[in-house]
Structures are given as structure tokens and as C-alpha cells.
């Protein structure tokens, strides 16, 4: 139940003084409370749990595991000729 889904912020607005937004989940659009990610702008990705954005997704951090895998690949390639 603690799962969060990444979605793309399409637009933002205020409702009862609370920052809200339209967030797109691969074609499905939902109203999401953005009050706790006030820095987001349209185009940013946020992690949404029960209609509430918990954090903004950091694109550079998201890349790290793939960088790690790429380094593993390079190491494997280095090993091949020497073996």
C-alpha cells in the first residue's frame, strides 16, 4: 500500500489555498496534491502516493544504477582479452 507511482506534472493550480496539479501517468491524468513538492514545474516527474506527491524524482540519481551497469560492462570487456 506504500507504493508510489511516477507521473509527469502537466499543470499546477491552487484549490482551497493548496497547491494541486494535473499529473499524467502514461496517458492517465489525475488530480494530485503538490503542496509538499512546491518547487515542481510542469515537465517534472513526481512520486505520487494516494493522490499526494511525496517527492520530486531526481533524474541524475535515477541514472546511477545504469551508470553502474555500464561500468560493469566495461570491466567485463576489459577482462575478455586477458582471459
Amino acid at each position, binding site marked *: *500500500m*506504500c*507504493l*508510489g*507511482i*511516477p507521473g*509527469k506534472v502537466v499543470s499546477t493550480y491552487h484549490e*482551497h*489555498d*493548496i497547491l494541486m496539479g494535473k499529473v499524467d*501517468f*502514461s496517458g492517465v491524468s*489525475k488530480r494530485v*496534491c503538490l*503542496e*509538499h*513538492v*512546491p518547487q515542481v514545474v510542469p515537465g517534472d*516527474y513526481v*512520486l505520487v*502516493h*494516494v*493522490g*499526494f506527491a*511525496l*517527492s520530486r*524524482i*531526481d*533524474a541524475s*540519481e*535515477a541514472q*546511477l*544504477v*545504469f551508470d*553502474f*551497469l555500464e561500468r*560493469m*560492462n566495461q570491466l567485463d570487456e576489459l577482462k575478455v582479452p586477458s582471459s
Partner: protein
Amino acid sequence: MMKYVDEYRDGEAARKLAEAIRRAVTRPWTIMEVCGGQTHTIVKYGIDEVLPADVELVHGPGCPVCVTSLEMIDRAHVIASRPNVTFCSFGDMLRVPGSRGDLLQLKSQGSDVRVVYSPLDAVNLAAANPNRQVVFFAIGFETTAPPNAMAVWLARKRRLKNFSVLVSHVLVPPMITAILQAPGNRVQAFLGPGHVCTVMGITEYEPIARRYRVPIVVTGFEPLDLLEGVLRTVQQLEAGQAVVENQYGRAVRREGNPQSKQLIDDVFEVCDRKWRGVGLIPKSGFKLRYEYRDHDAERLFEVESIQTQESPLCISGQILKGLKKPHDCPAFGKQCTPQTPLGATMVSSEGACAAYHAYGRHLQARQNGARAGDGETRRPGEVRQQLSLASGVPVSSSPAEGCQ
């Protein structure tokens, strides 16, 4: 293509990480994944079966639906059966068996029980229906505390006197401390709760890692997240380290979400909490602060403690503590199925029993004969097939849809 989801389900990358884990391991290790969402991914993609036999994953109690106490389910039942009440809940809670049946049965008998996507929807329902008492079943871990707190805060701000919450919030750090202190504990490291830490940050896990000498790697929910989490955990175990690491950096900041923590602190205070199948854990929950008593459903509806009785067959308590696995239960897949659950771990899609059942492990158990103490049936060929399919799994089958 779902960004930040599909790329973390790539079968080739998963195999590379599994290989790195195989290279890193020299002896047996037991690692607990804390969250039910992590358990769901592990079982769905057969991640436990691509790991070397020396790495055992045990499933933690991180499913709030599963650990909500029977007393609290019965209180919900009593409140929801009142004629002037519209009772709102996340969908998973409707089928959790209480002493008097579940909320879905109550709905079929005419009570106004509704599934909402968000607690904020329940607030809007109260605004639109001033003659109804709208009660929201505010369950969850720290992840769900900000939206639930926001609902209460907003209801007070909008002067909605007909909105209240039945609060049954639970907290992860006291729970993993209880597991580490329990006699017979086998857990040597944790895959930490990624989404809980988006809210709370990772610092509150540092004293636990130090005191109990356990690595805690805060981990995400996709297959690559879990494999990288296991790799980092195993590297620490093999090196004799015990620190907190953050595998889920794309969503988790060290300090968590300061606005969310502030709102939680404004609305809730820490309390002792009874966990289903586990018992009372001191300071392991949230309750409403006195200032919000007008929105406290327990107080407003005067629901008192009710004598409760669990099924004598169900071993969900031992499963939630990581002492047993679903295969060890004589009722698993027989008397107890998702259609006729005896305990909560068979209800929620994140419960270990429901996850095992959904992905056919009750059939495996029958074919191979359940082995006491070790329900795992490692069939690497089958697993490779599952992982190679991983990148092609349609988004609609994401475990995230089990969310509500």
C-alpha cells in the same frame, strides 16, 4: 513506456546484477525486505529465485493492511454500520476479515461503504454531503501519514465538522527494532522501506544500524532496485560493515520531505500501537493530537475495545515476523485463498501469502511437496523466463495498481 518504471524492469540488466551478487557472496546471509510492495515485486519477478542459494530473503511486516489490528477492523465495522455514516477506505481494507466479517459484506447489506483513491477525496465527499458523517479509515505507514494528515488539516481549515478519521498508523523503525530484539531473530540486514523514507529520510535508521550491527539499504520497488539493494546489502555483510545506504536516491533525500514531516508533527503524535499478528509495540504508531479531537472517529463514535478472535489455523503473525513463509502454513492455498482469506496476509496484494498465491507458488508447493522451514522451490530455468519477460510486462500489471 512508463518513465522511471519500465527501464527498471529490464531483464538483461537484472541478470547482470544477479551475477554481481553471485560473485559477491561467499557464505549464507538472511536479509529481510521490509515492505509488502517489495515482497510483491520479489515474488512476481522471481527475484528470490535468481539469487544464489546462500542469500535468503525473508518477508517483513511492511503491509499496513496486514498489520492493522483486529480490534481496529472491528471498530471500523461498528462505525460503518451506523445509518448516518459514509465510511471511506482504501480498497484493500474492504476484504480484511474482522471478527464480524469484512466491510464489503457490510456494504452488501446496505451500509454506505466507499472506496476512495485518496483521503482528500473523502474530504470533498464530506463537503458535498453535509448531512452525512464521513469517516475515513486512516491506515498506513509513514508514507501515508502526509496525505492522511493533510486530509484532517484541510477538513479543519474548511470547517467540515462532519469529517473524521479512524487512525491506525504504524511506524517502521520501532517494528524493525522489535524484530531485531525478538528471540530467534535470523535477520542480518534489511532492504529499507523506500517510500517511507521519501517522507522521513534515512537518518532515523542510522542508530539502529549501529546498535544492532545490521546493514540497512533503503531500496525501491522495481526489480533492478531490489537487485541493487540486495547487492549493496551483501557487499556490506561480506565486508563486515553495518551502515545505512540509499539505493533509492531518485526519490529519497537524506532528510526526507521537510514539509511532510512538519505537517505530520502538527497533526499526529507518537503512540503505542497493537500490530495484527505481532502484538503491542511501544511507540510504534501515530494518533491524532488533542487539537484535532473533533475529527477523531474513535472519540466521536465511542467505539470501545471488542473481544477479538483470530483463526486458529492462520500463522500470519509468524509470517509477518519473518519466522515462517506462506508454504509453511497447512491452510495456505487450501482453506485459505484470496477468495476465502483466514488472515490479512492473504488479503492485500502486498501480503506475502497473497503474493505467493497470485504467482502460482501454491501450485509449486503442491507439486514439490511443501518443505517445513523452507518453502522455497528454486527452479532457475523458470525464473530466467520470468525475468526475460520483465521488460515486456504491460504497465497495467504494475504492482503499483495494488496500491488502492
